[in-house]
């Protein structure tokens, strides 16, 4: 399919969805699903093709180009697939709410804009789609109003700062090379001096770093993710922040080029090492901050920041294995984090908007499918074997160890232990433990919510057992970007630098579970008793009085809390206050009283005359 038509359908779908909502909600819903599904299928059919079309011949003297290659395809596919699932999930979630026509239109517009970003073949169209994406995202984050408005504002200010840097970068490139077409710019940059490359890297990198929320540009993410409507949180965390990584990949390995990128920086401290350290910090702090959260979605949001650290660690390393690990982790994270946000959304929907982990519990008996989804999602997040998170993290660890960065590997592995703690907290406090009295009549998640969750669960496990499927695509990307090809087999990677054989691992796990189950089955079966019917060493606990999941891991919390103030956020907030004060000071001059303005003019003129009389410089 022609890329122009694809993008037209995506953008047009958004407009038509908005118009349809005034006719009938059901037709609108069906249409929105149809459009996103059509886009997803169309993108899937573009696999393996490289084509280029002109979207607009002469926009400000520069043609807007659309182009698809392996890297665009992978990101476009993820965007459209997660987008489609998110729309399906939204059906029940948004039903009966006010302004939901606007919600759907914006959701589709964000997806169209993200599609545009991944497909853009020149920097100007990249910028334009980037802006559409940022603006429509802002509208969706602040959709709920109230605190969501503040969260949206925070996102917006940070995003605009990044976009402005990118705009300066675009102008910078245009002035120097008189073209914005990506491959031509890349060619011109290959002979540019390092100082120039630094400028390009910093200007564009700022925009992408803000969007991908790597430390220290993360403060917008936790409030934005937790305040946005849950289906959109899944899109935000699953694919939108990944646009930042798409940008970084294009910047590092297409525009600047692998060899030039790896030689940037100083002898003792190359740029890619700096990025690796930033990745490590991005893993470490947010992981432990996530541990302290009591809001389900905020916990997941901090976890998103931490997982972004793994991706940056992988892709900044500059080896084929590292790139594969980073890219695969982007894909894994898109699936399991979208899944977990949907879980949080389903629980929120059925319990009447409860996100506080301390007031939930025991929902496994009420929402079994949602629990299964949460379990699979949490396993993926931790990186338990048989899920896709295991393979991607394995590749990243392996890269770090073999490339002689044991300290970065250490941080990454410790991050995994922290992940276990907060993932279990998420699972336990929502689904296990005691069922509070007010939640005894909770119903299972509706069908339209279960479908996307089951699909994502299947993907998490499928890519975990047969990682060769995504790795084949990722390997193609690596080859296009100038990396050596990996020896990919359906069950993993066979290469001289090491083997991961998921088929063996999966078989071992499955057989071990079977053996354990056989041992279990052979024993005398237990009597099924009520949850509260437990042994308390002679001191019976009054029923329904205590919530044991409250302050889970409290000793640890007490120990680490003093170390975990988010100084970056405090810094930005301080900056905001400072700006407000300065602007407020400036405002005092603009009184709105004409007499004052006349006085300023007279004072200025008299100053000029004074200077002229005294020193006569003019």
């Amino acid at each position, binding site marked *: 399919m022609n890329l122009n038509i694809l993008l037209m359908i995506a953008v047009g779908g958004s407009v038509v969805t908005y118009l349809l909502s005034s006719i009938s909600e059901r037709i609108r819903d069906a249409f929105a699903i149809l459009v996103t599904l059509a886009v997803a299928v169309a993108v899937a059919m573009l696999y393996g093709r490289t084509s280029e079309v002109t979207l607009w011949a002469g926009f400000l003297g520069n043609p807007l180009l659309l182009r698809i290659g392996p890297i665009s395809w992978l990101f476009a596919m993820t965007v459209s697939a997660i987008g489609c699932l998110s729309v399906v999930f939204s059906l029940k979630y948004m039903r009966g709410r006010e302004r939901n026509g606007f919600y759907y239109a914006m959701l589709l517009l964000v997806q169209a804009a993200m599609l545009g970003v991944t497909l853009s073949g020149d920097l100007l169209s990249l910028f334009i789609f980037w802006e559409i994406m940022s603006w429509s995202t802002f509208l969706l984050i602040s959709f709920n109003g109230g605190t969501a408005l503040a969260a949206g504002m925070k996102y917006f200010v940070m995003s605009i700062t990044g976009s402005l840097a990118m705009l300066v970068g675009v102008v910078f490139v245009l002035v120097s090379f008189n073209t914005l077409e990506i491959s031509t710019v890349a060619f011109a940059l290959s002979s540019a001096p390092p100082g120039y490359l630094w400028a390009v890297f910093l200007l564009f990198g700022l925009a992408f770093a803000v969007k991908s929320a790597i430390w220290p540009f993360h403060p917008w993410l936790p409030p934005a993710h937790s305040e946005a409507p849950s289906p959109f949180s899944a899109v935000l965390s699953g694919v939108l922040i990944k646009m930042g990584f798409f940008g970084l990949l294009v910047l590092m390995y297409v525009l600047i080029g692998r060899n030039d990128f790896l030689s940037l920086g100083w002898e003792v401290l190359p740029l890619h090492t700096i990025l690796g350290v930033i990745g490590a910090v991005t893993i470490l702090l947010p992981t432990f901050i996530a541990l302290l959260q009591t809001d389900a979605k905020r916990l997941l949001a901090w976890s998103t920041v931490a997982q972004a650290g793994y991706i940056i660690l992988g892709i900044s390393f500059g080896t084929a294995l590292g790139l594969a690990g980073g890219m695969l982790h982007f894909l894994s994270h898109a699936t399991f984090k979208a899944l977990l946000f949907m879980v949080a959304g389903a629980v929120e929907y059925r319990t009447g908007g409860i996100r506080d982990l301390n007031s939930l519990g025991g929902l496994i008996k009420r929402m079994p499918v949602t629990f299964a989804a949460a379990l699979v999602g949490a396993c993926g997040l931790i990186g338990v074997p048989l899920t896709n998170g*295991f393979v991607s993290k394995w590749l990243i660890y392996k890269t770090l160890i073999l490339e002689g960065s044991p300290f970065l590997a250490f941080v990454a592995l410790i991050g995994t232990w922290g992940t276990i703690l907060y993932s279990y907290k998420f699972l336990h406090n929502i689904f296990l433990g005691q069922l509070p009295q007010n939640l005894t009549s909770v119903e299972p998640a509706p069908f339209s919510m279960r479908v996307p969750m089951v699909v994502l669960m299947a993907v998490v496990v499928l890519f975990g057992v047969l990682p060769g499927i995504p790795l084949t695509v990722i390997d193609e990307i690596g080859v296009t970007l100038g990396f050596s090809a990996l020896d990919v087999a359906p069950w993993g990677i066979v290469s001289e630098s090491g083997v991961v054989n998921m088929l063996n691992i999966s078989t071992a796990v499955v057989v071990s579970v079977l053996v354990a189950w056989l041992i279990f089955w052979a024993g*005398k079966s237990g009597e099924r008793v009520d949850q509260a019917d437990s042994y308390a060493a002679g001191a019976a606990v009054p029923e329904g009085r205590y919530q044991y999941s409250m302050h889970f891991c409290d000793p640890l919390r007490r120990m680490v809390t003093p170390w975990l103030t988010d100084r970056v956020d405090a810094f930005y907030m301080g900056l905001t206050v400072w700006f407000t004060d300065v602007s407020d000071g400036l405002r005092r001059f603009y009184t709105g009283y004409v007499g004052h303005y006349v006085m300023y003019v007279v004072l200025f003129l008299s100053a000029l005359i004074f200077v002229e009389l005294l020193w006569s410089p003019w």
Partner: protein
Amino acid sequence: MQVLRLILSPLAALVIGILFLGLSRKFMARIQWRYGPPLYQPLIDILRLFTQRSVSHGVVFDLGIILTLAASFVIVLFLPFGGLCPMSGSGGLLVVLYMMLLAPLGMALTAGESANPNSSIGISRWFILALGYEVPLLLVLLAVMTRYDTISLVEIVAAQRSHTSSIATFPLVLSGVAYLLIMPAVMGLRPFEVVQAPQEISSGPMAELGGRYLAMATVQHALSMFIGISLFVNLLWGGASNPLVFLLKMLVMFALVLWVNAAFPRLRIDQAIRFLWRWPTFVAFVGLLLVVVIGD
């Protein structure tokens, strides 16, 4: 042949693990001037437990205990046992590391399904303690992997054998010391017996287990003792070319850990974390630094 190894390896671990359980009771009894139960007593206990009554709190309660035991079996398959390693070429030490996380997770699911305060406290302590010893443990493992530039356990063992001396070679001495310091924590023995703490929280996560559930938890405990010691022997004590020498090395280490177990009282959980994050971490950190600086 391969199939035989696949069966033999977990079976050997099972037998040795249970032997360790019996040995520890005998050993502790003798230290305390008692006669102690016969060596095969734990085996009798486990078999008897399988035939006894128990309670279950639901599907996840069952699932968790199965997962815990299965995870331990998988680890055993990946650990070389004196030249016997059925899953040598499928992912190496990183898989073992990951699988070591699964056993507490499975137990946590079991404990979470029951609304027992003791289990809840025990599980939270288990997670915290694991985070505590995992910091120095990872530093030790990374030092070993960096030193031999491989993530394969079999290659690590082979590399140590080619370095003539079978005890940890020079730059890894500090890592070995660090591992010794955290070994009781890895195995859940005193002074780090905070998870079970029978006198305080009635065996913690085990409080709700009876019958086959308790039997499986005991088997898992036996396997985890095997894993904790086997990891040290493989990574820092040169492994062994035949199972008999390997077993001998394991027994020496086990005796050492039991002495510590007999001599020290239990720490509080925050004291345990403070200790683990202070001395062993410091030693392991310096050890890793040494390996990186010396390089090759």
